[in-house]
């Protein structure tokens, strides 16, 4: 199993060294991988059908509780087969589609990586492992959307897509960790046991919010949906694979997977139903106005995703079964439509639905695929879509209270619009007269029309023989979502009932709409007038404002003036110190153990203070230097008075050297300008004095503290006997604490080298770094 999941990853890594050899002729070989995987996963069907499930455990980061734990049940099997199945077709399709593209190797690498990530996602039993794969899908999608990276729109779309899904990803991560933290395990199987605790916890709302944020962004729910139409910048096989069949369903998968853990409450249901409902209606409505085939498909995909969220939100057995059916239905017809569109685009060079018609004459096998897929999306009887649609109505009708009416109406409306979109994409290009400019179009490589045709035919097959999919896949999948048996099974014919009526209404009104309404640039323009209120635009505004805010914040804070920075640091320090100084106890000073004061000490101190004052206030640079050296000398005298001869010597000699340095450097510097206004100076004085005062108060505090002189006594006792020196300070410097001294002279050495290089080194223009 691990090999199965990671094989895509390994293949994509192998592309780095071997990619260039695989480029053209051999690229088709890569498709063996998904085909083999499909077969591998298909081999589990019997086990799953018999109600079993399989777990795999590979240790990875056990101390974090993150292991390569995989769990294969109905839900993950459904998705695995979708991923590998549609994957196989897309791989095959892409080989001729991108033939001769200079980055075909990269394309396959990304695609394999994506497939691995997606498989990992749906198989992971560990929420963090799931999250890891979740992010990998985002990243590989980023690279795929930006595949044509010399196109600015393409780059922008991929950034937006990753921005939205990545942002949601981080929230999801927090949510999953919160779940794991509360339930004590990151294993989904173990979380199932803690579901009551989670639902009752005070942070349950937060968990839901965070998980929803992840799921909604990934599955393009309103108002995060707008990245998906943008993602259509990716090559069409990618759109078919990622942005309709698999990746966008990751959010759906997550909701389905967590339904037994978190679901079944109002907090779960209402957000999902509302957001799902809004999404499906909003985007289905939007698809009416598009003229680009891929845009139409994108909006109808969003609508489908909305429907899925909506169904999971309802949470009844019927709705969950409907969801699992609809996942498959949608994957089949939407992938088929995308691939069809890809061929049309590839062969005719346009995707503008207003300019496409009659292609059945030149692309007849493809027209079969397109029309079948469109019919399935419309829910025409004997297509798989019909069964799906039935189940949706079944689900909406089986809710309680006023909900059935509202929800059913919602579903009906959406379905009509989805039907319209499907017809537009799958039927419109093939019917009607063939324009003159398209007569030269000819049928491409069989792989390209074969892939959509297979998918469309599968839709027909399952539509006619639903039990093929039901027991093996869909019922177990729904079972996994509910963690309980579903109790119903798929039927083509339910008898005459409300559901059938609704299906009929849907069909009739949808077809009517298709007949009446023709897509046009004008209607596209009409909807684009509302762009200012579109979430995309609003998000853009938010991004723009937050950037503007960031810019203001950064430039205000980081304004380039050193003194302002220093001022902030000092103010911060003063506030912090003062806060702690004045909270918790008075400041005292016991005077009895202080040393007496002599006149000359006072005089020296007074001179020191006056010299400081002079240094600070003088307007002559040299006077300031003189005053500074006076300060140094006075301190030196204090050191002499208080028994520190070595210190006095060093202080004095260093002070003198500093003066010499200053004097050597100060040549030709202009006099000080008084650059600060009065107010600034008062402010600075206030801050500086506050700091000085705080330091003094702290010093007083410390003086009150009894002093432990054990260390200095040790030095005094052993300086001569053990270290053979009588000047204890020197003994400390070269022996007890010799390391300090060694590295202090290193500091000096570095400074000297620095001075040397600073003044002598002139890089010539060719030396850049």
């Amino acid at each position, binding site marked *: 199993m691990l090999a199965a999941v990671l094989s895509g990853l390994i293949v994509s890594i192998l592309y780095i060294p071997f990619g260039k050899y695989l480029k053209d002729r051999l690229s088709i070989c890569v498709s063996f991988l998904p085909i083999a995987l499909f077969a591998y996963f298909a081999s589990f069907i019997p086990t799953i059908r018999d109600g079993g499930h399989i777990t795999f455990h590979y240790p990875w980061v056990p101390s974090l509780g993150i292991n390569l734990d995989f769990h294969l049940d109905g839900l993950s099997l459904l998705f695995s087969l979708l991923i590998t199945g549609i994957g196989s077709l897309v791989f095959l399709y892409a080989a001729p589609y991108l033939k001769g593209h200079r980055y075909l190797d990269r394309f396959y690498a990304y695609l394999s990586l994506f497939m691995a990530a997606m498989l990992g996602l749906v198989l992971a039993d560990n929420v963090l492992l799931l999250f890891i794969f979740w992010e990998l899908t985002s990243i590989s999608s980023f690279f795929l959307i930006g595949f044509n990276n010399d196109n600015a729109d393409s780059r922008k779309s991929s950034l937006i897509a990753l921005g939205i899904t990545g942002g949601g990803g981080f929230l999801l991560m927090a949510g999953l960790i919160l779940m794991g933290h509360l339930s004590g395990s990151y294993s989904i199987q173990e979380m199932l046991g803690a579901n009551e605790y989670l639902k009752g916890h005070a942070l349950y709302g937060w968990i839901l919010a965070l998980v929803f944020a992840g799921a909604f962004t990934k599955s393009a729910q309103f108002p995060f949906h707008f990245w998906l139409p943008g993602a259509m910048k990716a090559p069409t096989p990618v759109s078919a694979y990622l942005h309709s069949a698999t990746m966008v369903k990751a959010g759906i998968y997550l909701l389905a997977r967590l339904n037994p853990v978190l679901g079944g409450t109002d907090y779960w249901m209402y957000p999902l139903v509302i957001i799902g409902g809004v999404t499906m209606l909003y985007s289905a409505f939007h698809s009416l106005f598009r003229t680009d085939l891929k845009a139409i498909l994108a909006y109808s995909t969003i609508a489908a995703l909305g429907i899925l969220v909506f169904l999971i939100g309802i949470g009844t057995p019927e709705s969950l079964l409907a969801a699992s059916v609809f996942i498959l239905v949608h994957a089949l017809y939407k992938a088929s439509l995308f691939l069809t569109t890809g061929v049309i685009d590839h062969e005719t060079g346009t995707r503008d639905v207003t300019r496409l018609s009659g292609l059945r004459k030149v692309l007849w096998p493809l027209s079969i695929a397109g029309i079948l897929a469109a019919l399935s999306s419309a829910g025409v009887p004997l297509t798989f879509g019909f069964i799906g649609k039935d189940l949706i109505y079944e689900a909406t009708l089986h809710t309680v209270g006023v909900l059935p009416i509202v929800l059913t109406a919602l579903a009906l409306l959406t379905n009509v619009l989805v039907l319209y979109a499907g017809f537009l994409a799958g039927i419109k290009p093939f019917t009607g007269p063939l324009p003159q400019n398209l007569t030269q179009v000819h049928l491409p490589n069989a792989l390209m029309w074969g892939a959509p045709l297979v998918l469309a035919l599968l839709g027909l097959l399952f539509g006619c023989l639903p039990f093929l999919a039901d027991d093996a896949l869909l019922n177990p999948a729904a079972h996994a979502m509910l963690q309980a048996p579903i109790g119903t099974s798929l039927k083509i014919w339910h008898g005459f009932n409300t559901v059938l009526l609704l299906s009929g209404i849907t069909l009739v009104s949808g077809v009517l709409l298709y007949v009446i309404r023709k897509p046009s640039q004008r209607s596209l323009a009409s909807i684009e007038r509302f762009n200012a209120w579109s979430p995309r635009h609003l998000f853009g505004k938010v991004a723009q404002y937050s950037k503007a805010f960031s810019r203001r914040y950064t430039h205000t804070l980081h304004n380039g003036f050193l003194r302002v920075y220093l001022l902030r640091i000092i103010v911060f320090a003063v506030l912090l110190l003062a806060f702690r100084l004045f909270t918790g106890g008075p400041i005292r000073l016991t005077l009895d153990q202080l*040393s007496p004061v002599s006149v000359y000490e006072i005089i020296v101190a007074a001179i020191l203070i006056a010299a400081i004052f002079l240094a600070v206030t003088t307007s002559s640079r040299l006077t300031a230097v003189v005053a500074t050296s006076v300060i*140094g000398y006075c*301190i030196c005298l204090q050191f002499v008075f208080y028994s520190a001869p070595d210190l006095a010597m060093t202080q004095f000699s260093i002070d003198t050297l500093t003066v010499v*340095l200053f004097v050597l*450097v100060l040549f030709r510097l202009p006099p000080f300008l008084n650059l600060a206004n009065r107010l600034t100076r008062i402010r600075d004085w206030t801050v500086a004095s506050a700091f000085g005062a705080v330091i003094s108060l702290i010093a007083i505090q410390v003086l009150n503290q009894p002093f432990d002189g054990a260390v200095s006594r040790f030095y005094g006792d052993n300086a001569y006997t053990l270290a053979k020196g009588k000047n204890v300070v020197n003994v400390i410097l070269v022996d007890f604490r010799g390391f300090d001294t060694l590295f202090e002279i290193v*500091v*000096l050495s570095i*400074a000297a080298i620095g001075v040397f290089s600073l003044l002598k080194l002139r890089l010539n223009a060719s030396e850049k770094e």
Partner: protein
Amino acid sequence: MEIVLVLLIGILYASGIFMLLRRSMVKLLIGLTLLGNGANLLIFLLGGITKGKPPVIDTAAKLFTDVYADPVPQALILTAIVISFGLQAFAIVLLKRVYVLVNSDDLDDLNTPEEEDI
């Protein structure tokens, strides 16, 4: 005397800070010197001060016969003084370079616009 030193330390810190907040680089350097002196004096004071008893054992003796000043703060300050000399020497030369570059010691003249980044 401690009180006087406490006062001195406060003033040294305060004036050092004040000088740091000026636009002139010379003043900035003087400010750093003042701060350094303040810190040294603080260590000196807080380690306990003793008058007229240097920590040097008499020529004839092998051990101290009298009380003596704590040598540890002295050793620390010595190290700190030397280190700050190194830093200061470098800083002063940096000042020279600044002056050569912008022809003043006004730090605001030094600010390079972001457009000049490489």
